[in-house]
């Protein structure tokens, strides 16, 4: 079966979605990513959607799910590279991706992830809750 590759770089997992996903592939990515976060203890997930020509409610929901699930597994998610036409359409569709953090490109997304992870350590969230 087709699979979307998940790359590991230090504490981060990187995903680039380059195909027009059918629904089952999107669900498989959701499962694979949560599994990889828990296996690797990754602190951040970066999802590059710059090749996606549309994001419909199904893919939008998948992105929201990944963000929520990774949060529960103590990782941050940033979605990067959304095309402007996709953003316009998504909002008109009624989906503003609440709970999903976004950045314009991979560089900005990585910086956001690093700041989130560092910030969390500085403020001692870990020691407060465990």
């Amino acid at each position: 079966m087709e699979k979307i590759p998940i790359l590991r770089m230090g504490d981060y997992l990187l995903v680039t979605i380059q195909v027009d996903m059918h629904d089952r592939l999107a669900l498989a990515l959701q499962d694979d990513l949560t599994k990889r976060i828990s296996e690797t203890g990754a602190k951040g997930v970066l999802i590059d959607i710059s090749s996606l020509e549309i994001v419909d409610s199904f893919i939008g929901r998948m992105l929201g799910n990944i963000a929520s699930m990774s949060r529960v597994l103590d990782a941050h998610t940033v979605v990067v590279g959304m095309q402007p036409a996709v953003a316009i359409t998504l909002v008109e569709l009624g989906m503003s991706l609440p709970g999903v953090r976004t950045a314009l490109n991979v560089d900005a997304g990585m910086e956001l992830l690093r700041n989130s992870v560092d910030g969390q350590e500085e403020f001692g969230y870990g020691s407060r809750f465990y």
Partner: protein
Amino acid sequence: MAVVSTETLPVVSEADIVTVRRRVRETATHLGFSLVDQTKVVTAASELARNTLIYGKGGEMELIILNGPRVGLRLLFSDRGPGIPDIDLALRDGFTTGSGLGLGLGGAKRLVNDFEVVSRAGEGTKVTVTRWK
């Protein structure tokens, strides 16, 4: 209103949803739609094709090119599923009888210029949308 061409695509599997998206994109590009308008009509088609598959238990999409006086792309989704008992309710954001977000029908309506649903309980549903250039 002159119909330039029509084409029918099956909507009976998830792979068909991808084919519908691709075909609608090709046609909208060919007609000279702006990138934003292409994206809107393809996204609407994706939502409606999924509805046809999941709620209508499969059906088909007719793709119609209109020309004169205006150029437009019309998509007609039809199924022989259980039908929609209350269309107003089905159009409301957040309403769903399935596991989705309930944005499909109402969301698709906002992405096109003309929108029509005809549904009879036990007979099926026809959704017609048109995006004008």
